[in-house]
């Protein structure tokens, strides 16, 4: 299925979880926040939430400057 990640179209395995998707990109899921269809996905649910066709994802990096 096709999803959009940070503005780019990507093909991913049907029903892949947020956790597995991030791991597949080589990212540590513990270290990023994911916005799915304009809402942050709670981190404790990454393994349970399955992506769906046409999802719009943004991988949000944490910033902490003041």
């Amino acid at each position, binding site marked *: 299925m096709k999803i959009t990640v940070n503005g780019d179209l990507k093909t991913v395995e049907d029903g892949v979880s947020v956790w597995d998707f991030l791991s597949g990109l080589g990212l540590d899921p*513990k*270290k990023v*926040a994911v*916005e799915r269809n*304009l*809402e*942050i996905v*709670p*981190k*404790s*649910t990454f393994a349970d939430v399955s992506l769906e066709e046409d999802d719009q994802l943004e991988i*949000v*990096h*944490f*910033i*902490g*400057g*003041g």
Partner: protein
Amino acid sequence: MDFTDEQLERYARHIILKEVGGAGQMALSQAKVLVVGAGGLGAPMLMYLAAAGVGTIGIVDNDHVELSNLQRQIIHHTPDVGALKAESAKAKLEALNPEVTINIIPKRLVSENAESIIGGYDIVADGTDNFKTRHLISDTCVKLEKVLVSAALGPYEGQIATFKPHAGEGLPCYRCFLPIEPDPSQERTCSDFGILGAVAGVVGSLQALEILKEITGVGDGLAGKMLMVDTFSMNVRKIGLPKDPGCPSCGEGN
């Protein structure tokens, strides 16, 4: 309590707003806001809070003003280099609005003093530059049920959100967004990575605005939301930020 003629004139442009009015201005004068960090975010934020007539403002910062701060931390001026930021900020705020009470706490916020410092205020503004202190502020605010208006800066970007999990079902705390501290390598401080000065002005001013809205009840707040400001592309987006049921601070993970 009635306004003096001078107060009516000073705050005329607030009082004329139908959403603010005399009641809103009175709420501002009775509010107690603690600003942690008198740096890039704190500088514009403190100036707008004092100008608006927030009655009591606490400033926590143990740093001294450096020359390299001045391209963005506009509350501090060239003659202040070497002075405590809290002292420097207090002097400017008292000149701006002598009606506000400025308490300075020239210490680092640590677990031993966080509750006693934060406990005396209604609203806390996080303008710090490290994740460890951000977590300490959030955890203390969750415990003491204080409203936390949080902002963070990147070189060209900002994130702003209001956290008050005590105020409603489904409202998050900062740890719902960032449960554990990222590696120090991800700690992208302004001194390490740089920042275009006015970015701090925009984001710190938005943070002040959200505090004024929380106090007066005007408009839509940012509880359960996060405003992502990308000044490089000039994209501004408001996204949903739900409570994490497994949050180690305000959820079942506690």
